[in-house]
């Protein structure tokens, strides 16, 4: 009897508790969702604060210099530095399919630099490989529209004509940025620029090392390459300023890696003079033994991005 009452009570208890439990689950879920939303708001607020902190006042602006995909490779050619196929093996032969927008965007930046490298040194076979990869990445990033598709077609047409290709590539970059800004994805544009930066620095420091090892590093190279190294430090500072505005996890991870790189640049202890008369930067010097650390860091960082293990 007692047992049956207990069972009955238990049964009633279940019946009564069920809606309470359901309500509790809904309430907890709601609280969790609300807390997530609060978190998002907080992150947006952080972003705005970082932005306002940077620019001091509303409606003011900061002008930054940012790298382009053709600069380093053009500079290597200008300085009569020999082509090195080993530096592009990893990207040329890589079959990784990139999943996230971040991976696609940063690898697009890297591959655009490599395309300019093989074109400028007349490696037409590799040019086509890179072009196909770039075309795929722009499609996956939804960067193709009625303005960018004709420019991409022109790029393929001019794949062996350096002058026309470079002009077209920079035009393509302008159009892609426009598309990204219109669709409010300006952070993707910055990630592509970060790709230019990483690949450019990788190319620069590896060629620097090769010149050293071959004992062909004269002051002709030193004077010119040091200027370019200094420019990379400025680019890095610009990128860090800009990337910190975006709270996206991947971007913040990238930012953290670039902060490490910035510390290594600080250790270079770069000195320079500015000639008012000639209106140019002169005598850029730094502690060269520290450059090896930057080269090692950027090579490993770049490898993890290309293989999507970052």
């Amino acid at each position, binding site marked *: 009897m007692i047992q049956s009452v207990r069972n009955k009570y238990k049964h009633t208890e279940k019946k009564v508790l069920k809606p309470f439990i359901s309500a509790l689950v809904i309430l907890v879920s709601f609280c969790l969702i609300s807390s997530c939303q609060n978190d998002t708001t907080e992150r947006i607020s952080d972003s705005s604060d970082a932005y306002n902190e940077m620019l001091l006042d509303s*409606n003011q602006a900061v002008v930054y210099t940012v790298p382009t995909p053709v600069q380093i490779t053009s500079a290597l050619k200008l300085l009569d530095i020999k082509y090195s196929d080993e530096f592009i093996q990893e990207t040329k032969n890589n079959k990784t399919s990139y999943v996230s927008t971040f991976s696609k965007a940063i690898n697009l930046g890297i591959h655009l630099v490599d395309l300019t490298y093989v074109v400028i040194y007349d490696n037409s076979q590799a040019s086509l490989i890179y072009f196909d990869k770039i075309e795929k990445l722009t499609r996956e990033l939804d960067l193709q529209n009625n303005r960018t598709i004709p420019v991409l077609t022109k790029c393929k047409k001019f794949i062996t004509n350096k002058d026309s290709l470079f002009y077209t590539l920079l035009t393509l970059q*302008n159009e892609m940025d426009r598309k990204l800004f219109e669709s409010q994805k300006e952070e993707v544009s910055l990630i592509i620029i970060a790709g230019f930066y990483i690949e450019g620095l990788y190319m620069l420091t590896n060629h620097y090392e090769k010149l050293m090892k071959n004992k062909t590093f004269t002051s002709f190279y030193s004077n010119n390459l040091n200027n370019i190294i200094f420019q990379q430090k400025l680019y890095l500072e610009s990128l860090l300023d800009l990337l910190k505005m975006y709270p996206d996890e991947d971007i913040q991870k990238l930012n953290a890696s670039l902060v490490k790189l910035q510390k290594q640049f600080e250790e270079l202890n770069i000195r320079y003079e500015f000639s008012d008369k000639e209106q140019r930067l002169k005598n850029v010097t730094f502690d060269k033994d520290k450059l090896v650390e930057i*080269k090692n860091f950027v090579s490993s960082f770049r490898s993890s991005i290309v293989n999507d293990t970052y």
Partner: protein
Amino acid sequence: MRLLYIYIFSFIVLLHILFHAGNFTILKNEAIIKNTFFGSFLNETNQGGAPTEKVKDLGSSQEFQLKYFKGEKIDSKVILSWEAEKECNSVSFLIEKSFNGIAFKELALVAGKSKNEKNVYNFIDTCSVTGQFFYRLKQKKSDGTYNNLDLLLVNNTKVDISGLLITGEPCIGKCNISKASLDEIAKGNKKILMLDFMGNVVPVDLPGLNKTRINVKYNPTDYFQSGVLIARSLTKTQTKIVK
């Protein structure tokens, strides 16, 4: 007895190690210096940032010296001049010219003068139409090989840009722009001075501002110029929500 031999042998080995310890240390340090990426470089080039340019002649013990390489624009001509010293292995100088910095053509081969005196050389490029040119000076050595000596960027364009510039000082890396200047940028009336990739000060076109808070622009006709990015502060309500 065997143990005694082992003890004596070990003692001799120990003495040998102690005696040569200093030498091992030195060898170790030398190896580190050689293996250091920039170790060998330090002895080969001018590290002090002195105004004169010293280039090590790789095939000779004497140092070839290029004091300067400069270009002066006079009307449609460019007068190139350079001073060299200790031309031990020099046969001649090759001047190359390029419109874009990537495709160079041989412009002239100027014969070297003497071995150790200071020599000033001149060459007049009469085919300089308006625009920007790169000149590359090379030393042709007695073994037939070439050594790069210097690069020169000459801008032959005569444009009065004084009224268009936001500031007379170049921006190194980044610079703040006032609200008044932003309006001028939006109209396309203003330019700003920035360092190009090779350290030259150049006026750059700025991207116009629209509703987005970041605008970037690349100059497709100049491969060495950096992209220019304007980041604008908006009010908090206008600030785009980042996903």
